[in-house]
């Protein structure tokens, strides 16, 4: 639930939205005409902001704020569509190795300087150095006619989503983390550790209709609970990433609760290199032993989508719906598999959980309860986040863990960690067939072919029961009714530009 870089392929997004329960449609009717300008809003965040350089920023909590300050050539909207932003147009060469962008005119940075091709070239070059996904970029050329051409090392048709990388003033790289000058609808005004971030309206924003608010504060709350109290008291107007037990406490007359499926994969991840999880039958048995629906109801109050395999169905065509229901709870099957693997009486195992994520801790508790039905005795071991990262994720020194994997809104990003040699293949999954498919995917240009490759790959992984996949949790956000126009993104974005007062104050 934590961390992600998420860029969306436009076409796939419509599918994702099809099961977003309550979308952000409530305000659409009256908004446009009687738009109210001015006013303030306070957004509650539970993580201390850390890095403000748009090319080195990693934490989702930072990125979702910086979305309002920096902009790229292209920009997502709340439906996941990529729209032209600082570029007005793009032309992609036939072999998908050259992208030529036309730069929008009349855009100024927050310091008043005007955006030109030089800034774009500088920014893309810097981004290519700092952001691994952009290392595909071989060359960036200023064509002189207000267009910029980017040459890729290898042809790749999915690259457009990466051009959301921020454009910053030329040669400002060393100081950007402190000056925080972008072109976005809001100007970064101040940051105080432990207190929060203040953004103020960009008076010279290239889209004259936006933003509405004069000032937005991202306030740091100690945790979900204290933030929730502040939300109820009115100290906070917008509070994202709520749990359902909290959102259900809110008075509908005062708050508008938004929910949207997110592209996350929560699971009980098993270290495939450690006995007994090196035995596929044990992994399958565990998959049969649990009741995902019950866990979702228990932990999320139903606000999650049960998962069968490593990919969420929100990924659209890449996901194979025929896999649904493969691992519906079947205690007898589970016991039979365990007996076959030589664990008729079950076994002892340890679930290592990062203690700061209550959801995962609770999930582990529920899992331990369910697994006990087939004789598996699971002990929970809580570790702090830094220890988890070091020991479990980087060190792979664990038996099993509950965590939520996040990825870009791209099927390739979801599955590329399962290549046996991947840095982040922390479950030590290894299947030569899967390795081969993953290696060939980026080299394949044809969309249909790629989709069938994804489906084949998921088939292998489901059969292997790589881990016990549990759910794709919904993202829930509460907005005070004094505000309107807030849009929930299927990724880590807090877009404040469309938020406005419901009535003039």
């Amino acid at each position, binding site marked *: 639930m934590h961390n992600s870089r998420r860029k969306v392929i436009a076409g796939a997004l419509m599918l994702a939205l099809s099961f977003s329960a309550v979308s952000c449609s409530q305000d659409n009717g009256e908004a446009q005409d009687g738009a109210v300008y001015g006013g303030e809003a306070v957004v509650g965040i539970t993580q201390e902001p850390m890095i403000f350089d748009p090319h080195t920023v990693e934490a989702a909590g930072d990125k979702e704020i910086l979305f309002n300050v920096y902009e790229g050539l292209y920009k997502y909207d709340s439906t996941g569509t990529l729209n032209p932003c600082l570029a007005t147009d793009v032309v992609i060469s036939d072999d998908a190795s050259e992208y030529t962008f036309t730069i929008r005119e009349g855009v100024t940075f927050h310091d008043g300087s005007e955006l030109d091709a030089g800034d774009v070239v500088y920014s893309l070059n810097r981004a290519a150095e700092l952001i691994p996904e952009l290392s595909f970029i071989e060359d960036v050329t200023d064509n002189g006619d207000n267009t910029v051409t980017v040459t890729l090392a290898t042809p790749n048709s999915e690259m457009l989503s990466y051009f959301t990388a921020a454009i910053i003033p030329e040669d400002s790289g060393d100081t950007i983390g402190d000056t925080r000058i972008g072109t976005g609808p809001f100007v970064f005004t101040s940051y105080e550790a432990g207190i929060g971030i203040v953004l103020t309206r960009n008076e010279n924003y290239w889209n004259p209709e936006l933003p509405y608010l004069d000032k937005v504060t991202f306030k740091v709350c100690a945790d979900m609970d204290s933030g929730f109290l502040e939300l109820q008291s009115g100290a906070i107007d917008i509070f994202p990433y709520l749990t359902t*037990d909290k959102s259900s*406490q809110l008075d509908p007359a005062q708050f508008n609760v938004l929910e949207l499926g997110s592209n996350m994969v929560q699971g009980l991840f098993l270290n495939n290199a450690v006995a007994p999880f090196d035995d596929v039958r044990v992994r399958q048995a565990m998959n049969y032993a649990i009741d995902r629906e019950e866990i979702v109801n*228990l932990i999320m109050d139903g606000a999650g989508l049960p998962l069968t395999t490593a990919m969420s169905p929100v990924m659209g065509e890449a996901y194979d719906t025929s896999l649904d229901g493969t691992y519906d709870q079947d205690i007898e099957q589970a016991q039979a598999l365990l007996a076959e693997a030589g664990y008729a009486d079950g076994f002892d195992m340890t679930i290592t959980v990062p*203690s700061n994520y209550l959801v995962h801790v*609770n999930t582990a*508790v529920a899992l331990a309860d369910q697994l006990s039905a087939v004789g598996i005795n699971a002990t929970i071991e809580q570790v*702090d986040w830094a220890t988890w990262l070091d020991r479990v994720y980087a060190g792979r020194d664990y038996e099993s863990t509950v965590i939520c994997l996040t990825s870009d809104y791209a099927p390739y990003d979801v599955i590329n960690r399962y290549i046996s040699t991947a840095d982040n293949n922390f479950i030590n999954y290894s299947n030569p067939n899967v390795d081969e498919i993953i290696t060939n995917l980026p080299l394949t240009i044809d969309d249909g072919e790629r989709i069938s490759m994804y489906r084949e790959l998921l088939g292998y992984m489901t059969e292997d029961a790589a881990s016990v996949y549990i759910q794709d949790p919904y993202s829930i956000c509460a907005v005070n009714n004094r505000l309107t126009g807030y849009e929930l993104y299927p990724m880590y974005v807090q877009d404040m530009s469309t938020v406005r007062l419901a009535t003039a104050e």
Partner: protein
Amino acid sequence: MRSSANSKRYLYIGSALLAIVAVFFIIGLIWTPYGINSTDSASKFIAPCAEHLFGTDNLGRDVFSRCLAAARYTLLVSFAGVAVALVIGTITGLLAGYYGGIIDKVIMVLSNSIMCFPGILLALVAVAIFGPSLYNVIWALGLVFAPTFARVYRSSTIELLGRDYILSAKVMKVNPVRIMFVHILPNLMPQILPAVIIGLANMTLFESGMSYLGLGVQPPAASYGKMLADAQSYMVTAPWLIFFPTLMLVCYILGLYFVSEWVRTSVNGGSK
């Protein structure tokens, strides 16, 4: 004079309160009405009623059953932690008070350092070195609390050193270790008992505080402190999740406190 009648009342009330905790502890070892860790999405957040005396929590677990089971961890952590602290604190405090001089200085600087050192970090270290078992956390907790006891012991020891009976023990050439532990130690009980009670209370709290970093009692096991820490999220919707563990803690701490009060007055009252 009249305090003796009062102190008897302390004993009665204190024992009654402790008896409640003891009954919970013993029943919890043998039987609970529901499975301690059996989760059920259909019975989340049920307010106290006939089926669930203390209600249910966010995972549908029976709070009464968990209160029964939690007694053992609360008692274990607090008692074992205080015992460790007491042993370390006793030895160092007596040494510092009895010998004074450079030994005293060294011990006091060390204990000051530990008092300034964040206890949670120490617990993290213990876990990193010895693995995340409850017992290691107890050791760490004991070490964190030891300086408090050492201080109490030290100052009271210094006070007792001038008493004639200690002088006469010295004149008899009684071995210093024996003077410390047999002659001085029993006389420190009136000072040490309240410190132990406060220590037990603080230990329980500290243990619950450590769950912020995943130390202490590991879920799904529960201690009263941890139940409280977990209940914080639901205090508005399900106040019973706070109320009952707090009630148990109050029974436990108040009971100990009253009994210690009785011990104190009956020891002091006699000599006066």
